[in-house]
């Protein structure tokens, strides 16, 4: 009984190393331990990564292997565009080998809306009048939709009436007073996190 126990501990057969990689992890525990120098060095011989450009001719003369680290770039490495012209590093940095042209650039977060500059001064006066006369109906969003511009531009153009601000403030306080302590703390944490963005923490 004891003998077979021992037998099963030792791997059944010494599988050659060149098994295809998928099933290697399966037999990992069955592989013979590297008891000889030859087996150890054999296992340490690792093929260079594809990105090294491992064509044979390269290995003779000196060449630089550009292997960017898989981590976020440090802010202390000034981008080439920001380097002043008299800086020696500007021309040292050749364009990266596979300079991805425009279509290979990663997708845009939000398509840049080109600015139309179509509003005339009379439109501006119109916006201010509408805003002043009936602030409740003419919110920024409505005006922006009406004049096809961004709400941000509307806020640049005119201010809401103080009453509306007062009303909105009271509405906000009413909403916040309904918050429990947990929700209030969650909101405060969110505010703290946003401030942490600014300090890049």
């Amino acid at each position: 009984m004891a003998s077979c126990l021992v037998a099963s501990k030792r791997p059944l057969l010494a599988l050659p190393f060149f098994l295809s990689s998928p099933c290697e992890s399966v037999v990992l525990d069955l592989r013979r331990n590297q008891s000889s120098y030859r087996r150890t060095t054999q296992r340490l011989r690792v093929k260079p990564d594809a990105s090294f450009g491992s064509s044979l001719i390269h290995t003779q003369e000196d060449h630089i292997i550009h292997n960017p680290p898989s981590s976020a770039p440090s802010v202390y490495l000034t981008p080439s565009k920001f380097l002043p012209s008299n800086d020696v590093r500007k021309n040292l940095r050749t364009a990266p080998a596979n300079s991805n042209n425009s279509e290979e650039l990663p997708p845009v977060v939000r398509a840049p809306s080109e600015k139309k500059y179509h509003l005339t001064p009379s439109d501006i006066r119109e916006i201010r009048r509408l805003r002043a006369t009936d602030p409740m109906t003419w919110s920024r969003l409505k005006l922006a939709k009406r004049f096809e511009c961004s709400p941000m531009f509307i806020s640049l153009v005119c201010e809401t009436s103080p009453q509306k601000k007062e009303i909105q403030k009271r509405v906000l306080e009413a909403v916040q007073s309904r918050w429990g302590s947990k929700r209030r703390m969650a909101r405060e944490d969110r505010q703290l996190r946003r401030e942490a963005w600014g300090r890049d923490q």
Partner: protein
Amino acid sequence: MKRLQLQRWSGSVLSAQARTGGRLQQRLYYAIRHQSTASPAAPAGNDQLVKKQPQAPSISSPHSQKSRYRLPSPPVEAARESAKLAALHARLYLPSRLPLETLARSLVHPSADPNPNFNNESLATLGHDLLTYYASEHLICSYPRLPLTVIFAAMYAYVGPKTLAAMAREWGVESVAAPGGEVDPGYLQFQRLAPGTDVNPETITGTERPHDDEPTWRKSVTSRVVYDNEYGDPVKGPVDPSELAERDAQTSQGVTVEEANASFVSAVMGSIYLHAGRPAAKRFFEQHFLSRHLNISDLFNFSQPARDLARLCARENFEAPVARIVSETGRKSRSPVFVVGIYSGQDKLGEGAGASLLEAHFRAAVAALKGWYLYNPLDVRVPSSMEEEGAAPWKPVHVDLGEVIV
């Protein structure tokens, strides 16, 4: 020739100099004490007319232990007996030309001994000017595009009072419970605050700034260069001599440990400059101040980075910055990660990762702006390196618009 001229000048600073006659007469009668070898009174900046003040009659009064109790600070000859002082002198590798008496003097804060010939006020003033000068030139030359508020913060980090206090503690300087003539000169002597006094800095009024009393007026950043001190804090206006006594009374009421430590460290810097010359002072600055670790990128605090970046690219007429998603994962999960890169044309300016697109975009803009601000030219030379003999011809430091003014 230059070295000779410098010796003469610092020699004149070294000699005792009565700042205001009235106070000195009042000092003379109550404690006839011959002051230490070096007692510079004039701060380095303004070289006042140095009057040959009648040397205090230096009767070598043998200071027995009993008579020391009456002195506000230990007599000059006590410095030679103190082992603690000699150990401190050796611990800081101070040049041998700096005598122990001056080190003992730089340990005495004006609140402990108001007599200008025996406290470290003048040394601290000189040392403070040197420290701020060397620190600011190092910062501006190595990071030419730093925004002004960050320069103020970096100056505060390198030579601010908190850092100097930390350094004094790291040098192993302890402070006395109460100043007196019998204490060991190796201790830092200052009058402690009464327990319970409020130490946090109250808003300083009466500064030189015009319309200082208008609360609503905006204090612009550039005005802080002119009116505020090196760290951007409002500074008290000059006190005319008439209420000098009142200021004396105020200081005798006590100072914080931090302020005393800071005055000691600047006094050491000042005394090295006076005794061992400028190269030694500069080497001391590099050895002890520049060798400290500061991550400048932690000093930034952006509020609207995207807008600043857009202004920057417009000013430098690069293509408008466009935010692109470099990679993302878990968009529908509860912990998504978006990596957004900001591209100006083909070049990537900065990259940021965040739990939301908004955060990633924000951080990418911050990274891009830091990429711009933290530009560090190679082999930087500071202007003060020209003061040494045989310095290479001056090559102008990189200067450009730098900060984005929105």
